[in-house]
């Protein structure tokens, strides 16, 4: 509107401008104020360029997984596959059946860690988030503060004493050493708590007046209302656990997870490139699928993620 006052008239623009504008409308809604077409195009190109940078290794993994070895080692290397084959996957199975730990064992370990760890995390974190978000009792403020502070440092800081504690508990060389700490990820609790804060307190109080116990309120009223937050906790915990190598806690080869095995195969050198690509594809495809399914819920949860004063 402002532009029209300055004597601007869109009809006077040339054909190129109009074509570009039409094209841009395909991907941008065009209802935003204060936008110039030039700026839109430049910023969009930046986005595309960057998208190529982040997407490149994925495209690379997908293509390499289906390349025959001769094509992987061709000079100069090509990004896209020309004669797709499943050889890498059969090689992988062959390699893994020859090794003294079958690949199925690594897959089983990773799946077990991920499923048990994620389920426990979602349940325990939601259980703890409910009182913190919706009730006032001695200690709430303190616990909330501790959780926010714990976001401010990384697990690496506590690696040594955590190792000592694991030893004392007898958890070294068991999958519990990865699973139990995963139950208590602090980011999950934090996001869940913030999401629960927006449930109207009247829902909870009226259920309580009708005689529901806190357990019933939690399970029947609160939990169904925070489904988007579950999915967010699931994807965050999933991606952490799926990539867990268990490096410092697990020494028994039969209990190692898949990403540890992947690192070892990569260490095997250039001849294994095809197999590496096959494993990488598998490692990538599962969390990506989970993310695609849960994307909108995650965005919804993250809207409440901020640190308020």
């Amino acid at each position, binding site marked *: 509107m*402002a532009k029209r006052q300055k004597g601007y008239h869109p009809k006077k623009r040339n054909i190129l401008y109009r074509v570009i504008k039409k094209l841009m409308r*395909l*991907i*941008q809604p065009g209802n*935003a104020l*204060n936008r110039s077409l030039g*700026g839109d195009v430049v*910023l969009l190109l*930046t*986005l595309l360029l*960057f*998208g190529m940078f982040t*997407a490149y*290794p*994925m495209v690379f*993994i997908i293509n390499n997984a289906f390349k025959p070895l001769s094509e992987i080692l061709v*000079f*100069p*290397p090509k990004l896209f596959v020309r004669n797709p084959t499943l050889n890498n996957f059969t090689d992988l199975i062959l390699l893994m059946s020859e090794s003294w730990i079958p690949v199925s064992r690594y897959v089983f370990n990773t799946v077990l860690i991920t499923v048990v760890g994620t389920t426990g995390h979602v349940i325990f*974190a939601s*259980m*703890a988030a*409910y009182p913190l978000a919706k*009730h006032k*009792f001695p200690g709430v403020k303190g616990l909330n503060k501790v959780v926010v*502070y*714990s976001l401010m*440092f990384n697990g*690496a*800081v*506590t*690696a040594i*004493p*955590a190792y*000592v*504690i694991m030893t004392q508990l007898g958890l070294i060389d068991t999958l519990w050493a990865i699973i*139990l700490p995963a*139950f*208590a990820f*602090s980011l999950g609790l934090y996001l869940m708590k913030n999401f629960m804060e927006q449930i109207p307190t009247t829902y909870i109080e009226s259920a309580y007046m009708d005689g529901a116990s806190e357990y019933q309120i*939690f399970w029947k009223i609160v939990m169904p209302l925070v489904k988007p937050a579950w999915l967010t906790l699931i*994807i*965050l915990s999933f991606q952490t656990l799926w990539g867990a190598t268990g490096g*410092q806690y697990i020494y028994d080869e039969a209990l190692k997870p898949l*990403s540890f095995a992947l690192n070892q195969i*990569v260490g095997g050198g*250039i001849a294994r490139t095809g197999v*590496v690509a096959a494993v*990488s594809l598998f490692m*990538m495809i599962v*969390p*990506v699928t989970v*993310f695609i399914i849960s*994307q909108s819920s*995650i*965005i919804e*949860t*993250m809207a409440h993620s*901020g*640190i308020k004063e």
Partner: protein
Amino acid sequence: MSALIDKVNQRFHRYLDKKREVREKRKLERKRDFKRSRDLYILLTPYFLLFFLFTVLPVAISLIFSFTYFNMLEFPKWAGWENYRRLFFEDDVFLIAIKNTIMFAVITGPLGYLGSFVFAWLVNELKPKVRSVMTLIIYAPSISGGAYIIWRLIFSGDMYGYANAFLIRYGIVLEPIQWLQNPDFIPFIIILVQLWLSLGVSFLAFIAGLQGVDRTLYEAGAVDGIKNRWQELWYITLPSIKPQLMFSAVIQITASLAIAEVAMNIAGFPSVEYAGHTIVTHLIDVGNLRFEMGYASAIATILFVMMLGGNLIVQKLLRRVGT
């Protein structure tokens, strides 16, 4: 007369009954309230038991250990400030590690933060369907688990490495470059990979925050004389997503100071001339390979102080946005 006394008596008893009833009801209520808070504490217990066991307790233990000599076999011996003195005056590798950590953090932290915001902001301008696809593409590196391993193939030291092949093909270099063995290149490659990974949770938080900005604010802003997208960004968008700005800063600072896994898997462990050595890899080296737990705890304590300090300073700065 006796009829009157009976009547009074009756009333009195009724009064007593009612009082007892009320008292009992109150007692029941109190019992229920007690049960309620007990239930709430029970809900809290499993999570916080594990949380204290694996997060709070280790921090406390680490602080105490850092003043002792402890090798996992003998009982810890008190050592005072000895570990810290050794760190800063005798351990050359630790000084390299601190230098690298700060360099990595100062580059990847702010760039990752800025990148997360800028790309969330750009993605947010798109139509919903295009937006979901772009979100996936940009977020994908952080969800694909150990997929960053692929960078090792890209920067492989022979001519089949993709970077080398590219450079040789266009005649920029004649001999393949030993990317991951050359201390001049190692830091750059680690930073590159880390940046590639850095659009994670904070990127999602920004997208969510941007979608939650009240649209009428923009209209009001246009009326009030905001002329272009940059003014709109500074005066409306940024102040509206302040909570997300704070949250993402915490996530980015913490992640950028703890770079280790990428460094170890890309540049090797230990890396050539310690070019990819960070505080965390030094911690792993001392703790897991040499079992000097007291010394390692001192390293952890320093890292802890750096993370907490960095976060608190940035939180203070961010409070000023839009004021």
